[in-house]
């Protein structure tokens, strides 16, 4: 069952650079879909289309459709606030907001208007457990979040998205700045999370792509080269460019 | 609740945008209200009379030349003081002083910028003018010179802070490049850093001059307030009257709507236009320089 269907999506930035060319892709529900390929291939741009974060940057033209549960989110009438609560995002660099750990986690709920302490507390614990951070921080929820280590900060960012109970989680090279142990923890969380959520991951290496992908899509210079089952694609790529990239001949 | 949120967001966004545009509205309002009261001058006083050398409003002499030259002399004097002291201090702070000294000097110079001009005028009357009179053996110390000295002091903080920013913005690599080929720090300052910061330094001078032309209380208190044509070199040692001081001194005593009243607004709009030209030119110099450096870097 496809959670998201992308139909002939093209995107051009206002400085004239083309970022995505005629992408069509279905994203399976409750699975990890990996978008990989060399830098500048359009992976992040695609990710930012899925929660309309591209609205903030200078985008010239977007064409095509992105259907989330059957509704086109590129429609100008789409309520982007509701969309972003449904589609959470974790960025490459952990950006903790200048609040306490708890303050970071409840931020999204508070701006939604949730004031009930019990609901907020419940969301804090649930999301921290899902991000495998609960045991490390449960005794210091009111400490400033910047005091956490880099790996903990990134897991806090993941938990912050989860606190909103999204349906889709976008991860843009979430482990690029982390040590192997923290990376392992994040990847382990993803395995748990995919039982509940639709996950779209831009990995920071081909190895990570191969480790985590249920489905994989290879992007090169704004084009979708190949898409398929993860195991299949990494062991038996159909396109020569995909094979050259995963065997390390370029990229 | 959701629609309530949207509604509030809408109102706040509108209010913020309106505030953003308000600066334009205020400039337009200022221009309009000055113009409204200044325009009758052109029908009430013949142009030739405005360009005459006698300012004696009680007998309807509205010659603006003494006031213009008065402002000119005082501002020129102030510039001659503010430029070397302002740029020199900026160079000292940006290039020579150790870090701890910077931390003391910058707030001190800012402090001078914060001193009310009326305080400087007050000290001008009680301390500077008598001292000048004795030193130079003048009939009175309340002269263009006293005004220039104090105005120079008032313009210095502006020059220092803008020029120091400009020097600070010169990339370190320029300096290191000069040192690498054997230039001394002194040579680097003169041949590399200052030329690279040229447009910023120019802006600093222009803004300082703008500040001096517009200053009112200090000049009114210390220049002796004599509206005589200042054309000779010696004028600097005699009393003068500036445009700003004329407005401040006489506006309180004129009848609303009289010729004198209109002429004072005419002087006001002249000052407004001078400041407009000076400031817009100064800021466009900075703007161009920024663009150039962006081109170089990209």
């Amino acid at each position, binding site marked *: 069952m496809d959670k998201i269907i992308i139909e002939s999506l093209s995107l051009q930035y206002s400085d004239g650079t083309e970022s995505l060319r005629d992408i069509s892709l279905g994203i399976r529900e409750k699975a990890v879909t990996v978008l990989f390929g060399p830098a500048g291939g359009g992976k992040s741009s695609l990710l930012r289309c899925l929660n309309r*974060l591209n609205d903030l940057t200078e985008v010239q033209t977007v064409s095509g459709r992105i259907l989330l549960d059957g509704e086109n989110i590129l429609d100008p009438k789409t309520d982007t606030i*509701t969309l*972003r*609560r449904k589609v*959470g995002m974790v*960025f490459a660099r952990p*950006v903790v*907001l*200048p609040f306490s750990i708890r303050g970071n986690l409840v*931020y*999204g709920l508070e*701006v939604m208007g949730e004031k009930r302490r019990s609901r907020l507390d419940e969301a804090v614990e649930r999301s921290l457990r899902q991000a495998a951070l609960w045991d490390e921080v449960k005794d210091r929820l009111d400490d400033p979040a910047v005091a956490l280590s880099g790996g903990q900060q990134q897991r806090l960012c993941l938990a*912050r998205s989860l606190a909103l109970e999204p349906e889709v989680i976008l991860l843009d090279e979430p482990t690029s700045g982390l040590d192997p142990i923290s990376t392992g923890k994040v990847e382990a969380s993803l395995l748990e999370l995919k039982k509940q959520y639709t996950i779209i991951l831009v990995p920071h290496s081909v190895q990570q792509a191969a480790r985590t992908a249920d489905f994989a899509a290879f992007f090169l210079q704004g084009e979708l080269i190949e898409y398929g089952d993860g195991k299949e694609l990494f062991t038996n790529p159909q396109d020569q460019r995909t094979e050259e990239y995963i065997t390390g001949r370029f990229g | 609740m959701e629609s309530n*949120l949207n509604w*509030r967001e809408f109102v*706040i*966004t509108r209010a*913020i*945008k309106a*505030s*953003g545009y*308000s*600066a*334009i509205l205020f400039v337009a309002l*200022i221009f309009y*209200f*000055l113009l409204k009261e200044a325009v009758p001058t052109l029908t009430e006083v013949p142009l030739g009379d405005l360009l005459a050398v006698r300012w004696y409003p009680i007998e309807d002499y509205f010659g603006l030349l003494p006031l213009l030259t008065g402002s000119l002399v005082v501002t020129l004097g102030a510039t001659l003081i503010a430029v070397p002291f302002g740029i*020199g*201090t900026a*160079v*000292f702070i940006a290039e*020579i002083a150790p870090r701890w000294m910077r931390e003391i000097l910058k707030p*001190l*110079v800012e*402090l001078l910028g*914060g*001193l*009310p*001009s009326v*305080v400087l*005028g*007050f000290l001008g*009357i*009680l301390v500077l003018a008598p001292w000048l009179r004795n030193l130079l053996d003048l009939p009175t110390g309340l002269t263009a010179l006293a005004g220039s000295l104090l105005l120079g002091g008032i313009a*210095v903080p502006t020059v220092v802070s803008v020029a120091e920013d400009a020097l600070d913005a010169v990339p370190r690599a320029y300096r290191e490049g000069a040192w690498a080929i054997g230039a001394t720090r*002194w040579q680097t300052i003169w041949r590399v850093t200052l030329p690279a910061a040229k447009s910023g330094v120019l802006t600093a001078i222009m803004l300082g001059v703008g500040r001096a032309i*517009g200053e*009112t*209380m200090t000049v009114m*208190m210390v220049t002796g307030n004599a509206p005589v044509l200042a054309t000779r070199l010696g004028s600097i040692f005699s009393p003068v009257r500036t445009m700003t001081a004329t*407005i*401040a001194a006489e*506006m*309180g005593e004129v009848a*609303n709507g009289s010729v004198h009243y209109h002429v004072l607004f005419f002087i*006001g709009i002249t000052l*407004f236009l001078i*400041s407009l030209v000076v*400031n*817009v030119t100064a800021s466009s110099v900075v703007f161009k320089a920024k663009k150039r450096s962006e081109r170089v870097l990209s």
Partner: protein
Amino acid sequence: MKRTFSLNRHLVQRLGFGLITLIALGTVIPIVMVVIYIAVEGGPAISWEFITGFPREGMRQGGILPAIIGTFYLTLGTAVFSVPLGVAAAIYLSEYAQDNWLTRLIRIAIINLAGIPSVVYGLFGLGLFVLFLRFGTSILSASLTLSIMTLPVIISTAEESLRSVPQAFRTVSISLGATRWQTIRRIVLPEALPGIITGVILGLERAAGETAPILFTGAAFFLPRLPGSPFDATMALPYHLFVISTQVPEMPFQIQYGTALVLIAFVLGMNLVATVIRSRARARRQW
């Protein structure tokens, strides 16, 4: 040969540095001297009666309470108008404005407002507030005039402070479903607050020390009582100093210096508060 050459270069440098140092000292020493001189000459005048009493004997005796209170009211009145407007304008420029001709026009307008001579603000205030809007010579007219004069200082420092808040905070907040205004109110404004407060105080400091803009809009030569409403004229410290140093013959020097001391204490006190807030915020900043 080479040796003397380099000796010369270093001699030139030493002389040059010496000259520049002298110039810097020539700038700074008079500033310090002015403040010390006024403190020494005015110090003896300061007494409880001077601060809390009314002027007597044609202002040649007694205190300066009405002028102190008047300057306080004017500063407060200026804050009421200029702070919300200035901060909102800064938010517009930093968070909403796009790079187009309108924004450039706004910036030119702000630069222009900053450069208009203070006495011209006085004329404008007379024309618009005192006469056209019929507010009369009053605290209200004077505060409004000072507000517009203060706006550019507040706008430019507040904008700089808002811009220094990392862009990533905004992106994250938006991605969590916050609206633009929620992002500003909950994250950007609190982070920029120390810088904004500093700018506000510096702007108000300038307003508190100004004389020319209030000359024809709200300043009174002498008032036997305190102003009772925003529509009353008021005495003010800078104008009072102007009056007693130029308009009143045989004025005791001590009262003049005492008034000058109270004025610069008022203004420099504000300056000090702004400096402390700024340096504390810098030390505490986490990004």
